[in-house]
């Protein structure tokens, strides 16, 4: 059963983040190595397997914005840090979202620094699925510097989506910053388009951020959110 069907069967309209990663992986969209831990002990053994540094994110169907309740800790370098992070998340969630049932934690490998992109999607009755591309950050929002295309998106369409945004030059290397792995970004967009057309129940999706590394080093979806509706 696909994660989408499972979520629907459970009456959920939102995928858990590890389900989102599973869905992305099924379409060969790169996500950092990750795993779900029920408790601290599992968290530690998972982190050892994945390799530090890692990030920890709380898993709970009642929590919509994990950061707002202190449910996320990034850049954990070792075992000691991980144990502390787990404690911190537990305390913080208990205090700020006492109603929430915590199902566990998502442990994921930290992706190196890169340029943050947003690749989003929305379903519109008239347009069908539409994918939006832009750079992360407030300027994208301010200047509405996004490009959009209807699904299905071909490779050439995806290249145009990249070139169309004003911030494109930041991706090709600007003032000493290295050029980014644009082939990898195009690949994410095209695969994401396929994911959407094969999963019509998806109403909204945000891959935010997608981190574009230097040329040849890939692009990773670091955080993903999927909302479901009727087919």
């Amino acid at each position, binding site marked *: 059963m696909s994660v989408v069907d499972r979520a629907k069967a459970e009456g959920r309209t939102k995928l858990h983040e590890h389900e989102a990663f599973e869905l992305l992986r099924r379409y060969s969209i790169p996500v950092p190595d990750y795993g779900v831990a029920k408790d601290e002990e599992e968290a530690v053994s998972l982190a050892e397997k994945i390799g530090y540094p890692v990030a920890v994110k709380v898993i709970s169907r009642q929590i919509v914005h994990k950061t707002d309740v202190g449910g996320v800790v990034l850049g954990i370098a070792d075992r000691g840090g991980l144990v502390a992070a787990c404690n911190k998340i537990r305390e913080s969630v208990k205090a700020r979202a006492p109603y929430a049932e915590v199902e566990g934690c998502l442990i994921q490998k930290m992706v190196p620094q890169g340029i943050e992109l947003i690749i989003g999607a929305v379903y*519109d009755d008239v347009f*069908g699925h*539409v994918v939006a591309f832009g750079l992360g950050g407030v300027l994208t929002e301010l200047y509405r510097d996004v*490009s*959009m295309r*209807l699904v299905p998106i071909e490779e050439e369409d995806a290249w145009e989506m990249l070139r169309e945004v004003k911030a494109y030059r930041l991706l090709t290397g600007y003032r000493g910053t290295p050029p980014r792995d644009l082939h990898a970004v195009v690949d994410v967009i095209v695969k994401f388009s396929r994911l959407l057309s094969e999963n019509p129940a998806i109403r909204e999706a*945000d891959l935010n951020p997608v981190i574009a590394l230097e040329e040849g080093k890939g692009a990773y979806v670091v955080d993903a959110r999927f909302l479901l509706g009727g087919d």
Partner: protein
Amino acid sequence: MSSSQEDLAPLISPSSVALVGASPKQASVGYVILENLIDRFRGTAYFVNPKYDEVEIKGRQLKFYKSISEIPGPVDVVVIAVPAQVVPQVLEEAGKKGVKAAVIISSGFAEAGNKELEDELRALGRMYGVRVLGPNCLGVYNAFNGFDTVFLPAERAGRPPAGPLALISQSGAVAASIMDWAARRNIGLSIMVNYGNKADVGDVELLRYFERDERIKVITVYVEGFKYPGEARRFLDAAREVVKKKPIIAYKAGRGAAAQRAVRSHTAALAGSYEMYRGLFRQAGIIEAANLRDMFDMAKALATQPLPRGGRVLVLTDSGGMGIQAVDELEALGLEVPELPESIRRDLRRELLPFSALGNPVDVTGSATDQHYKVVLEALLPTAFFDMALVITLMQVPGLTQNLAEYLIDARRFRKPIVVVNFGGSEMVQSFTKSLEDAEIPTYPTPDRAARALWALYQYAKIRGVVRP
């Protein structure tokens, strides 16, 4: 939805028409359309209104039929201008007679909350195989055969001459004002279709129709917003095919409201927004106009000029200031304005005035003669260094004559796009402009507009894949 040309030919290019709701009362909708048909329609027109038998209109005895079924001959299209409640009955009668298409002018349907009545029209159309345009529309204007259902009198809303352009317009009022504007500028807007509520025929079918009409070279589209599920995708699929044969230029109105909504950051806020239309246009290979004037500025060039094989522009001017403006615009649009090659520059130095500027722009100065333009064009346009030319001819300078038009027209043989900037209002300027336009060299009053026209040609060349790698 099927959409072969055969489907829509009776609607857009009929040989016989029945006007239901025809009226001898001047200034009524039924009268204006009747007048259009008797004045200009080159086909058979029948008039239906049970209130009249025979009426003399404009010195002609016109027979009025009681109903469609009374009409003796075949009818391609029925034009319906009767109160909304009666329309289904008329449509059914038309269907029974075997009429293939209906233009429903009448309003009072979905736009007034009567969705059921509109659904009834759609169902009747399907049942009898009648393609329905409207309701609540201006319908069709076709300069080729004079079929004209626009109910605005010709003396107020001009009718443009036959030519290479077609317009699909979501708005009737916008369509009528474009027609009037085009008529006064002698722009060859042959066919206009306004579909109103779009119960049946819409943008997709019309694009397909114009794709196959060989007389149409450029399709212009005025759109406010699609309305049916999946419609954007169908539009995209159709447009992608059409642009392989001829260019589509679209202008999307209504960019602001959604922008307000979309201040929130996530993608869902962009649903139905202008950005989606922009994305759709680019994905389809549609050239987007910034406004209506821009749409026809670009259409004029696309209808007349060959496609450039690259983006390098020669700017030739007799005014330094105008030349600089042109370069500014061209570069802002992503076109190139390269320097002249040294060898040709040396040759030109011998032929031109000593104080001419031999950069790009080439400035032949206010002392220029017709001959100077000719020399520069012949030396540079047929070379591998340039793909197109923007020529500025301020005719106010004393050395230029009407002969310059002949030289520019002659330069068409180089098979590269040429646009001309010609600013001013004297009789000489007007007749110069007319000579060029008659010979299919597009002219513009300002450099920015000429630059946009070249940009559109370059865009379409890229869409068609003819740009040299």
